[in-house]
């Protein structure tokens, strides 16, 4: 299937979002094709996390519409969103692990709630997902006993547990050492090759190049530049070109 006739996994049509009269997203439109990687770049506070939350229906746009897997989710309540969310995984910027249960229970929670698997199968699946993010030994640890980077990986494991067809990841490599960060990139790349749509927020340009079929640079509520990594390097905007020159992770 060529990229042109692939279906859109995500469509934003003229989406605006303000908080207390402060406009964060202004008439934002973009599409993400099924099975591709879309990277959101931009300085902090430009609304990247807000964009991910809009895709998951955690926030509602003030104007415009959001379509996920062909379904217009604008204005849907939690119950109506359930079938859409079952196909989605979300790694939060803060990891957002449930801090009253163990790391393993966090991952198993997603499986318990949304599958008919036996507790034996759930345990095995949880263990294997945790191993894939390098946390095979932390099954019984409490989230508060993990480092920031480990929490991030546990959050990723929870998001991956249900083998989502759309994966939203917010700064996966923030707080990780370069080696683990590269491992996570490999994992995400592997996930993408299994035909999962990826939307990744990152400040790590090397990993943006690896994961992103298309990249978008958010600034002042609009997409300042969009295209492949090579296209963004040639952008007419100095800010975008400077951003793309960055080598460091983070």
């Amino acid at each position, binding site marked *: 299937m060529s990229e042109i006739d692939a279906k859109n996994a995500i469509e934003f049509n003229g989406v605006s979002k303000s908080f207390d009269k402060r406009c964060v997203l202004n008439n934002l439109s973009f599409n993400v094709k099924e099975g591709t990687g879309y990277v959101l770049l931009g300085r902090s506070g430009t609304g990247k996390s807000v964009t991910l939350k809009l895709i998951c229906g*955690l926030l509602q746009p003030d104007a415009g519409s959001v379509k996920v897997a062909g379904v217009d989710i604008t204005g849907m309540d939690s119950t109506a969103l359930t079938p859409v*969310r079952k196909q989605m995984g979300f790694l939060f910027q803060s990891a*957002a692990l449930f801090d009253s249960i163990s790391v393993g229970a966090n991952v198993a929670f997603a499986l318990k*709630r949304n599958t008919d698997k036996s507790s034996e199968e759930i345990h095995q699946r949880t263990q294997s997902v945790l191993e894939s993010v390098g946390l095979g030994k932390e099954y019984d640890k409490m989230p508060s006993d993990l480092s920031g980077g480990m929490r991030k990986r546990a959050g990723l494991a*929870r998001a991956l547990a249900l083998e989502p067809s759309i994966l939203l990841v917010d700064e996966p490599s923030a707080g990780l050492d370069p080696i683990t960060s590269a491992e996570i990139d490999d994992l995400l790349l592997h996930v993408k090759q299994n035909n999962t749509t990826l939307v990744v927020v990152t400040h790590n340009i090397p990993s943006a190049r690896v994961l992103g079929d298309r990249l978008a640079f958010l600034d002042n509520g609009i997409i300042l530049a969009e295209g492949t990594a090579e296209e963004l390097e040639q952008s007419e905007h100095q800010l975008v070109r400077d951003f793309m020159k960055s080598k460091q992770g983070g």
Partner: protein
Amino acid sequence: MAGAESLTGFAHFLVGIVINEDPKSKLASDGSPLLERIIGSVRGSIEWFGGLSLLGAQVIRECFRRPFEFGEVIRQVFEIGWRSTPLIILSGLAVGIVLSMHTRATLERFGAAAMIPTALAFALVKETGPLITGLLISGRVGAGIGAELGGMRVTEQIDALESLAVNSFKYLVFTRVVACALCLPLLTIIMDFSGMLGGFIAEAIISGSTLRLYFSQAFGSLAFADFIPATLKTVVFGLIIGGTSSFLGYNATGGAAGVGRAATQSVVFSSVLLILMNVILVKFIAFLFPVAGG
């Protein structure tokens, strides 16, 4: 959620009058004229009650929709009810002892010391038991729910629940409100009994009354119409405690400070609402059961 903002307005307003502590109030510091401030807080209060009523309506609607979250309701009954029993028993004993001492002092003057168990039973079952249970639980459970849900909100755990296709309102708020409504009458009964037991202990020491005599005197003249409405009204107390604290926690904003605020306000608002609601309920019960009253 709408109401979170108005809530702050009302919070300042109520906290101001109730506990006379108004730290850097938005209402006090923005220098607007008094009238505007009063209008602001009245509007805030109305919006706040609107939000709370909406929450109540949503809880009722969720009663008829799947999933029913039985497992989580049972877990909350354990957390809220079972874990509160030591507190209730201990307080009941102490209240019973004190009440019986006061009753004795009063009734002896009229030569009616034999009436002590009856008087104590009436006092406990009809008012003191339900009200003290309500206030104790609004302290222990209200603060707990406010802080727990507030913490989950500000650390995005509620968003995380939603992202895992869980209806967070149902899973967190509905289950707690239902558990509170189920637990309060049960805890009230425990409070009544331990109060009577406390009263007996005090009496046994002073007058050497026997347990059998004491309890037959106590419950001899107590009718079901005295006991049932007064105990069932605590279902409403449970709804108030669960609803108010869940509302404040679920809509908390502003980091750790916001969580602290949600916990404090949960206790303040649920106890004040409970005391006010009690007036209406007592009046209502007296209307429905003219003989029994309260």
